[in-house]
């Protein structure tokens, strides 16, 4: 049964779309290109068919906001090399399981009897470490600022509980510096960014300030309901047309301007910035997290002497260009043929938040 609130939510979407269309028509703006940064936004936009409600002159491109997708091939291979060891149990969020490495995947390792456990929270990996004192339990630390505080908390707890066999392969990345690389891109010439709602819950508004101030790009933070996404896009269009780029949160019930201070303190206590390799974007200085020296005892790379060796991408896979917003998934020659959700070649087809998986599921022929 529809509640008045559900009805309101449904009614307001076409009105927001109408307002966006009128705004662009009136302003006679040539075109506006906006990147939706977050993978959860990408999926919501496809699921609700929002592209069909946008004016023709409003182009929406997907960005690098799926943490699994931007995890570098060398990091995937490093995780797999740990799963191949007899002395270790790999604990991972489910999204990582099917990502193809250079020679196999974690799922295939598990099928061959290797110890790969799927967890829904890092606390389960801590419990695994307690239950298996003779094994290293290696948690795959993948994710942006939304996810990294939980890993930080687990590391603090591991230290307290003296769980020296709890290790983290740290692949966490931070969003704002990746956006700087994209804001700088002449190939893309973006007018604005639809900023990720749940990364912003943690970091607040300040870390994005340089985007309007230095690069003149419009920004809006949005939640994940269709009306919130449309409101975010309308806000970006208003800023672009007025020539007044700024950052506005359209998700005030969740995002405080200062972010979640407790989570920020956890991040700061456990991690320090390091250079990070992003699939598609290459190395971005200081856009990753590594453990501070007092937590290095839990660093899987150091304890297990894991090298992250550069690995070539699968032939023909254009996940890198998809992640930079340079092409849409259907422009990749492998899309829907050699690369499908059943048999993915690149990570964007694997992850539930990947652009290719979303395109395949909701708009395989690229009609929207």
């Amino acid at each position, binding site marked *: 049964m529809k509640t008045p*609130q559900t009805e*309101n*939510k449904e009614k*307001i979407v076409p*009105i*927001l779309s109408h*307002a966006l269309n*009128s*705004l662009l028509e*009136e302003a006679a703006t040539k075109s506006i290109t906006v990147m939706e940064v*977050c*993978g*959860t936004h990408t999926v919501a936009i496809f699921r609700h068919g929002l592209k069909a409600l946008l004016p023709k002159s409003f182009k929406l491109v997907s960005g690098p*906001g*799926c*943490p*699994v997708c931007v995890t570098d091939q060398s990091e995937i291979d490093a995780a797999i090399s740990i799963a191949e060891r007899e002395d270790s149990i790999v604990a991972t*969020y489910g*999204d990582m399981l099917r990502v193809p490495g250079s020679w196999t995947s974690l799922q295939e390792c598990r099928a061959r009897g290797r110890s790969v456990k799927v967890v*829904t*929270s*890092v*606390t*389960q990996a801590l419990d695994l470490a307690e239950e298996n004192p003779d094994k290293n339990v290696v948690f795959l630390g*993948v*994710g*942006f600022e*939304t*996810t990294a*505080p*939980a890993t930080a*908390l687990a590391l603090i707890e591991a230290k307290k509980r003296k769980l020296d066999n709890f290790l983290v392969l740290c692949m966490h990345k931070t969003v704002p510096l990746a956006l700087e690389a994209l804001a700088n891109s002449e190939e893309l010439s973006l007018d604005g960014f639809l900023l*990720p*709602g*749940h*990364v912003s*819950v*943690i970091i607040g508004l300040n870390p994005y300030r340089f985007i309007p101030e230095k690069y003149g790009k419009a920004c809006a933070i949005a*939640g994940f*309901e269709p*009306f*919130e996404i449309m*409101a975010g896009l309308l806000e970006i269009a208003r800023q672009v047309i007025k020539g007044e780029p700024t950052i506005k949160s*359209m*998700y*005030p*019930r*969740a*995002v*405080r301007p200062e972010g*979640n201070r*407790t*989570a920020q303190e*956890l991040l700061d206590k456990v991690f320090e910035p390091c250079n990070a390799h992003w699939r598609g974007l290459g190395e971005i200085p200081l856009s990753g997290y590594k453990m501070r020296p007092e937590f290095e005892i839990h660093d899987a790379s150091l304890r297990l002497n894991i090298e992250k060796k550069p690995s070539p991408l699968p032939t023909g896979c254009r996940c890198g260009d998809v992640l930079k917003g340079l092409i849409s998934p259907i422009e990749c020659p492998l899309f829907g043929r050699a690369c499908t959700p059943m048999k993915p070649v690149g990570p964007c087809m694997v*992850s539930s*938040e990947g652009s290719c998986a979303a395109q395949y599921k909701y708009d395989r022929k690229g009609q929207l």
Partner: protein
Amino acid sequence: MCLAVPHEIIKILDENRAIAAAGPVEVEIRTDMVSDISIGDKVLVHAGFAIEKLQGSEGEEICSLWEELREVMENENASNRK
């Protein structure tokens, strides 16, 4: 992966743990990152952790959007009448 789902706190277990419900599904969550949690509070849960207490409601956000839109539509009507 950055998916976070609104839950309602239904039982406080200790300083850092609570039971929260999303519809009929009840789960144990960690509340280390949010302060002053009470029964009935709405929180966003990501990977087993409450990452923020929700302030206000979706309904209030919709109301404020209606207000903004009314302004846009009034301007539009005014320019159509010219």
